[in-house]
């Protein structure tokens, strides 16, 4: 028998992942032995782990490496995304530190699950192989199902967890069937190898059928995860029922990770097939833009409105994905940058908006009626201005982070030759501005219909300040952030 040689492993690639996985396992045991009254300590420890992991990545910035036979990658693209995920997780945990005890659901597992979900996201950003992408996706999804249903025994929380699980598992089935078909068509599960096979020669007719069917199934599955129309119907229900910090985590982390993997799959593996998938994805992008923004227009529940608006934002990011696949080097690289910048702006903004919702949320109440925001300016000027900044950034009004995100995405789509799509994007952005501004008007002019007490605590304030400061800094001085995303390249797109 021959000795099976295991190629040397480049541990630099997996450092951040190992830290998060290891720390999550340790925390799970620590949480068992921390007394109930001190469980908050676990949250602080989790944040510490996230900070350490983020710091551990700094020395490896700039290079491009892969290990485990190409299964794990570390390029500047994935490093940038890893930092985004770690930051989002830290802010979400900060939001939760007082939210959980206030709503009577403080358990140490919560923080551990957030860490595992973060690890899943990082796998999605770093995966160079369809197996790893699938595992990362399932790790992320399984933890998020549990987190969504975490407010047990509140019925809406369980219900949204169940709905999320059923749609998510369904989508998982699509993705994995698609992966199997692509494996059959190309004989490989490695993204780079698939890309090579497809670029080198045309496939036989039968294999092409498998390939396109498989790619369609994978895009459908990821479409569920990123809430792309027409696969977005779960999002409003899940956002509404989930504990609000979890909804924030869902709206930013899960979407960002889905896009990270979708870009990798479409650009790296399916890049040569761009002429085939671009029209299909463009149609889906239009549907997403229209359905998301028009759906948000008719909502009176602010949490559901944010859910629909997040569907709309997925549409804008899809414009970036479309451009990312465009042949000819420069346009493609622009697309990747646009997706990353948009994700950065969207993350900061949504985290801020959900932070304000958390401050307004009362125990045992599930109304986020728009009237609750009436006269907020008179009662809590700081909270009202924070919410206003977030909403303006979501609408894409300069000088906020959201404006630069939209600007970059539209430019990239335009340069890639999607002129009409850009026009639809701008039109829907105008629709979107209407419902965001509606809340702003409520806050600043309307008389308070009833006194909704708003509570903040130091951790929540810290999270909010980070998010708002991020929006403003990015808005007034976009140069450093743009510089950062311009250096964040998929190893195969511009690096080599």
């Amino acid at each position: 028998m021959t000795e099976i040689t295991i190629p040397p492993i480049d541990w630099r690639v997996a450092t951040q992942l190992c830290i998060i996985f290891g720390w999550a396992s340790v925390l799970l045991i620590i949480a068992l032995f921390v007394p109930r009254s001190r469980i908050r300590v676990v949250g602080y420890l989790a944040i510490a782990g996230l900070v350490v992991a983020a710091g551990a990545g700094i020395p490896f910035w700039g290079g491009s490496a892969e290990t485990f036979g190409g299964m794990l990658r570390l390029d500047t693209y994935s490093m940038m995304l890893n930092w985004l995920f770690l930051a989002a997780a830290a802010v979400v945990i900060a939001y939760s530190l007082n939210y959980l005890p206030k709503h009577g659901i403080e358990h140490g597992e919560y923080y551990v699950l957030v860490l595992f979900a973060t690890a899943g996201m990082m796998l999605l950003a770093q995966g160079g192989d369809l197996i790893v992408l699938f595992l990362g996706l399932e790790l992320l999804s399984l933890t998020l199902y549990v987190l969504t249903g975490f407010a047990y025994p509140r019925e809406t929380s369980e219900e949204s967890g169940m709905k999320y699980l059923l749609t998510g598992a369904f989508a998982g089935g699509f993705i994995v069937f698609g992966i199997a078909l692509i494996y059959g068509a190309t004989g490989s599960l490695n993204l780079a190898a698939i890309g090579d096979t497809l670029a080198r020669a045309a496939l036989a007719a039968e294999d092409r059928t498998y390939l396109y069917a498989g790619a369609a199934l994978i895009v459908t599955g990821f479409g569920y995860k990123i809430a792309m129309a027409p696969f977005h119907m779960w999002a409003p229900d899940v956002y509404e029922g989930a504990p609000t910090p979890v909804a924030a985590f869902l709206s930013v982390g899960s979407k960002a990770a889905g896009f990270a993997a979708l870009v990798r799959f479409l650009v790296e593996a399916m890049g040569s097939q761009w002429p085939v998938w671009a029209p299909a994805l463009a149609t889906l992008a239009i549907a997403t833009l229209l359905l998301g923004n028009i759906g948000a227009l008719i909502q009176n529940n602010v949490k559901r409105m944010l859910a629909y608006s997040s569907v709309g934002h997925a549409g804008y990011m899809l414009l970036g994905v479309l451009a990312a696949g465009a042949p000819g080097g420069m346009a493609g690289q622009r697309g990747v940058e646009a997706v990353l910048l948009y994700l950065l702006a969207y993350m900061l903004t949504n985290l801020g908006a959900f932070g304000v919702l958390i401050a307004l949320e009362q125990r045992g109440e599930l109304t986020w009626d728009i009237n609750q925001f009436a006269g907020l300016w008179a009662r809590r000027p700081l909270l009202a201005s924070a919410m206003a900044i977030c909403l303006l950034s979501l609408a894409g009004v300069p000088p906020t982070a959201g404006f630069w995100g939209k600007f970059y995405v539209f430019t990239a789509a335009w340069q890639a030759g999607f002129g009409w799509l850009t026009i639809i994007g701008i039109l829907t952005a105008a629709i979107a501005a209407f419902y965001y501004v509606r809340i702003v008007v409520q806050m600043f002019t309307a008389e308070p219909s009833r006194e909704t007490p708003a509570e903040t605590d130091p951790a929540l304030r810290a999270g909010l300040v980070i998010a708002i400061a991020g929006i403003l800094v990015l808005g007034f001085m976009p140069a450093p952030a743009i510089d950062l995303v311009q250096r964040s390249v998929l190893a195969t797109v511009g690096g080599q």
Partner: protein
Amino acid sequence: MLANYAFVGVFFVAAVIFPLIPIVAAYFLGPKRPTPTKLDTYECGLEAVGDIRVQFKVQYYLYALAFVIFDIEVVFLYPWAVAYGELGLFALIAMAVFLFSLVEALVYAWKKGALEWV
């Protein structure tokens, strides 16, 4: 070669058609005069009592769930054991890490009282 299997197909078709004929015939020919007693659940002549959904103790479910997880993990142990001779030290460490995480899950379940029979 494939023709040898034709009789399987013939059998299959016959097996489907044969019971279908009386069922369809009964459906069209038989008189239907339902009464509440006739529509009642058939319990060997006894009267049906209570709900069919019997409450099991929740421990049954916890055991079942824990079993499903730990049972499936063996899937990774078999190929590892078969190829163990050729794999060397690294695979041993990798499997140790894997088993450690399983033990950790067991410790967690234990400490949470999932294994208690109350």
